[in-house]
């Protein structure tokens, strides 16, 4: 069984293998397919219409499946690789080891937010941004510019304490665990991390920054932690809800998996703690 680890505990070899697998997917064009898919859902998921990937109950199972698909692609390059997670409650500065030149590279430079260190720097020639919303071809980051602080563990715990998974109207205005984790309401966890990163991470084409996968891996882990803390709570809504993916409905774009299929992550992988 594959084990997903905290990125802070990866060995130098594990970091290198993960980065090399990313670069290989990028070179083959398969990486950009994931960026394109994500943005298509970002642009089409609406509060009052069909919504699958975002601002809806299936935010968590959709991204779980999206990450599994991506992890499988990484493993076609290197079978030893699993997605690491970034615990941004612990590694919360611009000088944390995650931003080292041996891993994800550092913050953007002040002049144009361009990332100039690490494997994804434009000058290295291996990470051109091709699926984009503007004319810039380089990876950008502006850590801490859009919002000063990453969420704290206390804020995470306050959201994990919410016993109800989701509530009508099942969108960005809902009360409950899912929407507070996604961040449209309350202390704002997931959305705030996208904004803190800046650059492509704060846009619809956020998977252009490899940190997208480590961020969402931690969101996925928080869902598993919530399930453990609330064993009698389950995914909602159960059935018959317009525009929204019910427990047994299939999710686009795969059309062969349901939220019910995704509830037990240990069918696919485990977390290191």
């Amino acid at each position, binding site marked *: 069984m594959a084990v997903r680890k905290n990125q802070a505990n990866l060995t130098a070899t594990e970091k290198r293998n993960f980065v090399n697998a990313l670069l290989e997917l990028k070179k083959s064009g398969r990486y950009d397919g994931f960026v394109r898919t994500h943005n298509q859902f970002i642009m089409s998921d609406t509060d009052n219409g069909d919504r699958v990937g975002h601002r809806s109950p299936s935010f968590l199972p959709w991204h779980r499946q999206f990450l599994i698909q991506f992890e499988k692609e990484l493993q076609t390059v290197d079978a030893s690789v699993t997605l690491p997670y970034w615990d941004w409650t612990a590694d919360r500065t611009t*000088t944390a080891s995650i931003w080292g030149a041996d891993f994800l590279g550092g913050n953007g430079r002040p002049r144009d937010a361009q990332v100039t260190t690490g494997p994804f720097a434009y000058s290295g020639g291996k990470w051109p941004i091709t699926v984009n*919303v503007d004319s810039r071809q380089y990876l950008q980051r502006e850590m*801490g510019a859009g919002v000063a602080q990453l969420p704290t563990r206390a804020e995470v715990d306050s959201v994990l304490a919410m016993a109800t998974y989701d509530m009508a109207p099942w969108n960005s205005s809902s009360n409950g665990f899912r929407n507070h984790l996604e961040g449209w309401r309350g202390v704002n966890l997931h959305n705030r991390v*996208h904004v803190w990163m800046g650059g492509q991470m704060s846009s619809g084409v956020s998977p252009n920054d490899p940190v997208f996968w480590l961020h969402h891996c931690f969101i996925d882990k928080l869902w598993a932690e919530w399930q453990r803390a609330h064993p009698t709570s389950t995914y909602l809504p159960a059935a018959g809800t317009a525009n929204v993916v019910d427990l047994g409905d299939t999710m686009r774009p795969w059309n062969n998996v349901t939220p019910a299929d995704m509830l037990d992550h240990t069918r696919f992988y485990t977390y290191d703690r």
Partner: protein
Amino acid sequence: MSSNVNRRLVLRGTAVAVAGAALAVPGVLAGTGTLAQAASTTDHSGHGGPATHGGPVPFDELYQGRRIVGKAAEGGHGAHHGGGFAVSIDGKELHLMQNADGTYISVINHYETYADPRAVARAAVDKLRGATLVPIAT
């Protein structure tokens, strides 16, 4: 160690602030706002709710040297996603979406909400730093 880290953070923050100020000075023509001011701009119609009373006030202005236009959508994509409103920067469409609470986001600033389409457009200009919007490859 920790004081060293703190000092580097402070220096980095200063550099960003200086760069932001340098950008703001020559670019401003009609626009007046920093990002913070733009984000707090309120809907002049006095209504924050979704598509109420004819929706947001149209605008056509220069902000940081970029022409930003917001007007009622003439059908198509913005007509349903943007709450009946469409925004462009230098003639290129900025994909806009209205949230259930009446706030707005765009494809450039997708994970934070703004009071009205003008604030979204100004925030996008700030993020673009002179770059051109391109149609999303789908």
